[in-house]
């Protein structure tokens, strides 16, 4: 029977759910749940539940009464619909002053079901309280600002809203007498006038005064709903009939074991209930502000990302867009070398901008930045390569220096290995490998005298003295002293007395193997050498003759092997001596220091500086050249240039170091000759590549200032013959001119 009633109940409720929607507003209990889902009982359990539920149902008999009445009401609901409608109407009348619009329930034409319809909201100023017809538009300003004015504000059109006429207290009193509803009006501040309150407002005031709920729709006397016990809503609980397990009442042995373990520990004192209080337990305080501030550097702040500039814009100005060359250059440079990691691009609209392909990469880099991750960064050299080139003065400002070949004379046979210019700069002698020595005018190039010797001419050097005029020609094992023709008589006399004195100086104590022969001065002839010095045999060709600046001593270097290579000859004493008993390596060149008694000896790799007066080695210069070919000392004596067959030219500052101050590698072939100009700040080097290079070399008296070396000019004009180019160069004293002798048999004069 209970089962039946339940079924009937659910059935009824289903039917009612729709109806309840219709009558929702009309009834007090409008918020009755539409769907409680209790009909999901399983049928088999339902039978069991019946027995249990019977008693419970009995316990709540009162609730059923309402349910029953409800049922009754439901049953004749169809018929009483009209009444409901009436009730609704009456209710609407009662609730006249409802704030919210009331919904009407009508039968839908389409579905045939009742539905609620709300009144339309007219979209005018009245539809919203905020847009109520407020005449005064001054806003929320203190109204006493208008106290002295005839108006109280302005309306929406800017017209003045005039102050309404207000009576005095007597008028007010009379009003309350005349108008029974006067007391229900309130003072409207904005309009500065009394305004009658509406019924709703009055009702609200009344409720507040009576401490009622101000909501008029609130019903404090709603009927209680037995949610879980009322008819049809009973909770049917399934219960098992199984016997209760033993563990429900037998105490747990395992628990006892655990407890006993703890008890034993307590007894044995392993667990102390309260830790003994010690002094260390007292709270300790730290004066954190007393500490010295940390000397550690503050942690590095995370680097800030660079702010985007115009170039990063998706639509940058035209001038930021890269040109075609810039784009090409950007694409060609390495990623690390790029100044920017993007190319500005122009899009007409933001929506056309494609996804940024560098996004992940950039975020990753930023994360690494924030993490202060060390990364290998190639140090970028933001240096203009041109700025590394030393600022050298323009060659035009360093004039004069030789720039063109003024004239050339030709030796028909053989290479011209040796060349010398007289100290007055007027005459030059050149000697070739066929044994011909030519004397010629420097400025005209006219050969005025020719001598012929047997064998190669190894070297030629004018005596630097100005009061005498002669030059020395070195051929195989002999040095010939020659006097040029057309010398003035006084000079000729002085030369003759120097080279062929009437009374020979006393022979030195220890005779040297070098023989000095001179014919009598009376039998002097230009064609014959006035003096011949015979070097010891097997000494070979004197390949270099080097005069001391004073012109009394001259040193010769012979090509022959053995220790007999270097000789120093003294003209006035007609004596020769070998300065070195033994010398390491083969001597290439020797030079006298222009002012000090120093002697430069160039072996194959090193230049040694000896002091001849004290007879000791001063220093050894290491040019780093594999084979020294040429050497010259600056007229001031503090600087030395050394040329090598391995194309290097080293400039030594003798005060500075044993290592070269500067190494010039400008020649493409072996350097053959170097020479300092005696007066002009110039030096030149010649090479087997057929070129002569002119350098400006200014040496300052100030020791702190480095010498200034400026390459000035490359003179080309000599032909390379059998791998040999310009073999000897000599400056013309007093003029910035250069004489050069080449393997092509030509001797040239280069003028400024």
């Amino acid at each position, binding site marked *: 029977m209970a089962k039946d009633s339940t079924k009937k109940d659910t059935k009824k409720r289903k039917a009612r759910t729709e109806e309840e929607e219709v009558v929702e507003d009309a009834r007090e209990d409008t918020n009755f749940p539409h769907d409680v889902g209790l009909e999901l009982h399983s049928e088999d359990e339902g039978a069991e539940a019946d027995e249990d539920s019977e008693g419970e149902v009995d316990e709540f008999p009162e609730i059923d009464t309402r349910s029953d009445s409800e049922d009754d009401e439901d049953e004749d609901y169809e018929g009483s619909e009209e009444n409901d409608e009436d009730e609704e109407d009456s209710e609407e009348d009662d609730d006249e002053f409802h704030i919210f619009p009331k919904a009407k329930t009508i039968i839908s034409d389409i579905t045939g079901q009742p539905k609620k319809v709300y009144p339309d909201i007219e979209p005018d100023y009245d539809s919203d309280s905020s847009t109520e017809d407020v005449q005064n538009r001054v806003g929320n300003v203190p109204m006493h600002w208008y106290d002295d004015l005839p108006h109280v504000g302005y309306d929406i059109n800017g017209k003045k809203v005039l102050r309404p006429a207000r009576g005095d207290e007597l008028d007010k009193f009379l009003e309350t007498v005349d108008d029974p509803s006067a007391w229900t009006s309130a003072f409207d501040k904005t309009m500065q006038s009394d305004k009658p309150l509406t019924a709703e407002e009055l009702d609200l005031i009344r409720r507040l005064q009576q401490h009622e709920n101000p909501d008029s729709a609130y019903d404090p006397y709603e009927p209680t709903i037995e949610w879980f016990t009322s008819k049809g809503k009973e909770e049917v609980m399934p219960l098992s009939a199984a016997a209760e397990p033993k563990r429900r009442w037998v105490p747990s042995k395992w628990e006892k074991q655990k407890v006993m373990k703890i008890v034993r520990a307590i007894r044995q004192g392993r667990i102390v209930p309260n830790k003994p209080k010690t002094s260390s337990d007292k709270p300790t305080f730290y004066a954190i502000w007393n500490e010295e501030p940390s000397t550690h550097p503050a942690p590095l702040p995370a680097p800030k990302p660079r702010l985007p500039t115009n170039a990063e814009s998706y639509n940058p100005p035209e001038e930021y867009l890269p040109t075609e060359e810039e784009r090409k250059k950007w694409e060609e440079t390495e990623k690390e070398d790029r100044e920017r990691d993007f190319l500005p691009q122009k899009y007409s609209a933001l929506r056309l901008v494609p996804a940024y392909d560098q996004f992940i990469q950039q975020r990753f880099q930023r994360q690494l930045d924030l993490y202060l991750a060390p990364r290998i960064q190639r140090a970028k050299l933001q240096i203009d390569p041109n700025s590394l080139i030393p600022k050298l003065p323009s060659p035009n400002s360093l*004039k*004069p220096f030789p720039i*063109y070949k*003024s*004239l*050339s004379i*030709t030796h028909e046979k053989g290479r011209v290995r040796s060349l010398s210019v007289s100290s*007055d700069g*007027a005459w030059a002698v050149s000697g070739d490998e066929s044994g011909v020595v030519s004397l010629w005018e420097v*400025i*005209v*190039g*006219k050969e*005025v005298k020719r001598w012929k010797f047997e064998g190669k001419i190894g070297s030629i050097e004018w005596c630097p003295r100005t009061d005498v005029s002669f030059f020395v020609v070195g051929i195989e094992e002999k040095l010939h002293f020659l006097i040029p*023709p*057309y010398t*003035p*008589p*006084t*000079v*000729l*006399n002085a030369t003759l007395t120097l080279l062929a004195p009437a009374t020979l100086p006393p022979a030195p104590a220890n005779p040297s193997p070098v023989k000095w022969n001179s014919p009598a001065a009376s039998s*002097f*002839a*230009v064609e014959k050498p006035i003096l011949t010095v015979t070097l010891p045999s097997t000494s070979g060709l004197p390949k270099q003759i080097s005069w001391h600046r004073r012109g009394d001593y001259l040193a010769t270097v012979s090509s022959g092997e053995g220790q007999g290579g270097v000789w120093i000859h003294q003209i006035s004493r007609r004596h020769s001596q070998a300065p070195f008993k033994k010398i390491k390596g083969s001597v290439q060149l020797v030079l006298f220091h222009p002012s000090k008694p120093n002697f430069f000896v160039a072996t194959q790799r090193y230049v040694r500086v000896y002091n001849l007066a004290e007879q000791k080695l001063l220093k050894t210069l290491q040019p780093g050249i594999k084979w020294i070919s040429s050497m010259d000392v600056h007229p001031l004596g503090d600087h030395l240039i050394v040329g090598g067959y391995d194309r290097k030219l080293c400039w030594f500052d003798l005060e500075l170091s044993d290592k070269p101050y500067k190494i010039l590698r400008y020649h493409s072939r072996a350097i053959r000759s170097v020479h300092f100009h005696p007066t002009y700040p110039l030096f030149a080097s010649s090479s087997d590549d057929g070129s002569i290079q002119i350098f400006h070399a200014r040496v300052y008296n100030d020791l702190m200032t480095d010498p200034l070396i400026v390459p000035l000019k490359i003179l080309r004009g000599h032909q390379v013959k059998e791998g040999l180019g310009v073999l000897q160069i000599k400056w013309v004293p*007093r*003029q*910035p*001119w250069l004489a050069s002798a080449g393997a092509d048999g030509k001797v040239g004069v280069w*003028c*400024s």
Partner: protein
Amino acid sequence: MSSSTTERTHPVLFTTQTTSQLPSSKFMIPVSWKRYQLSQLINKALGLGGEVGAGYVPFDFLIRGEILRSGVSLDEWCKEKAVPEEETLEIEYFESVMPPQKMSSLPHEDWVSDVECQLPGYFLTSSYDGRIRLFNYSQNLLHTIHSHEAPATCLTLIPSTTSTSTSHIIASGSLDSSTRITKISKGEEENWNTEHLASLPLHTAPISSISSNPTGTLLLTSSWDGLVGVWDTKIPSSDEVPATSVTEGRKKRRRVQEDGEEGSGEGKRKAPVNVLKSHQGRVSKAIFASGEGEGRRAYSVGFDSSIRVWDVEIGVCVDTITASNKPFLSLSQQSSSTILASSTDRTVSLYDIRLSSSSSSLSNSPIQTFLHPNTPSCITTPSTSSNQFISGSYDGIVRLWDLRSQKSALTSFKAWSGGEGSQGAATSVPKKVLSVDWNNGEGLVGIGGEGGFEVWKVSSSTNPGSK
């Protein structure tokens, strides 16, 4: 002449310094015209004869200091110089120099160091073999003077009122620093007699130049020792300078030179009137001034890059032009106010030798500079005042310049090229020109140098009307 109406024209104003003036009105010249058409126009306008033939005078045209090269049209010239079409060009016309013609070539055994063409009918050359040779116009070697044992470097003819057509006085200098005055006189049957009149012992270095004043009363010698000697040409009856130690050297020299030359007597040893000492280096050339200050002033150039103006009578340096790094080689007076000097920096520079009003010293910068491809060793100017001069250079080319045309020479010719010079061409080494002399009256230019001596005919620049 194109007569097409569409041809563009250029406004041109013709000027000239010759007597044949054109009316100074603007001409509209077709731009395609070249020198030839312009020359025809001038001829027609002057009524000299339109076509090439009798009376036709070729003209050259100078636009803005530059010669209008033949074969270059006006249009091309304007484009080259970026001259706008509307701009009026001022064209100066002058009689063109006819291409020089080689008259004769007189080979020498040795280089010719100096030539002298001022003696009508004869040429004088000094050579590096120490001899002075006399040629006549029919290329015959008339006489050889064994003047010096050493190479003769310079010679000059001393014009003398006493010298007749049969006797002339020559002064010459040598590398051995000896200077001589020699008289040659024509005897019977083309036999010329030599008489060494005097020697001028002063210098101790090779003589670089010797020159006389127009009247022939004074001589200037310059030497490598930096001295300039002033001498008169009177031949003293006895040695003015005793043969001291110098003589001793001379004796030795004589021994050196051994027998050698025919001893024709040393002549009298003259003493210098004045010695001009101021140059710091070699003096290359010293000349007397012509025109203003004649007889008193002299100019000299040297390797110390200075041009010095001397007062010969008191022997002091009146003024100095100090150029920078221009060792001068030669000097020539262009006009009474300007001198030309050639230097080893391949320029011939024109200097003003008048004192400027603002400063008391001469301007150190040249008025004009004429660039050469190689060292200009010698320059010569015509005896009559003119705008032209001739320079000889180490590249064997002799150039005729006009002062107004600074950029390019009027004409140039290569000495010792064709003919027997073919072997010179084979060596491809140009033969140096060492000396040029221009006899303006005869229109002859003598060129001495490495290849010997050559005579070229250069048509006179002066207008027949201006003579």
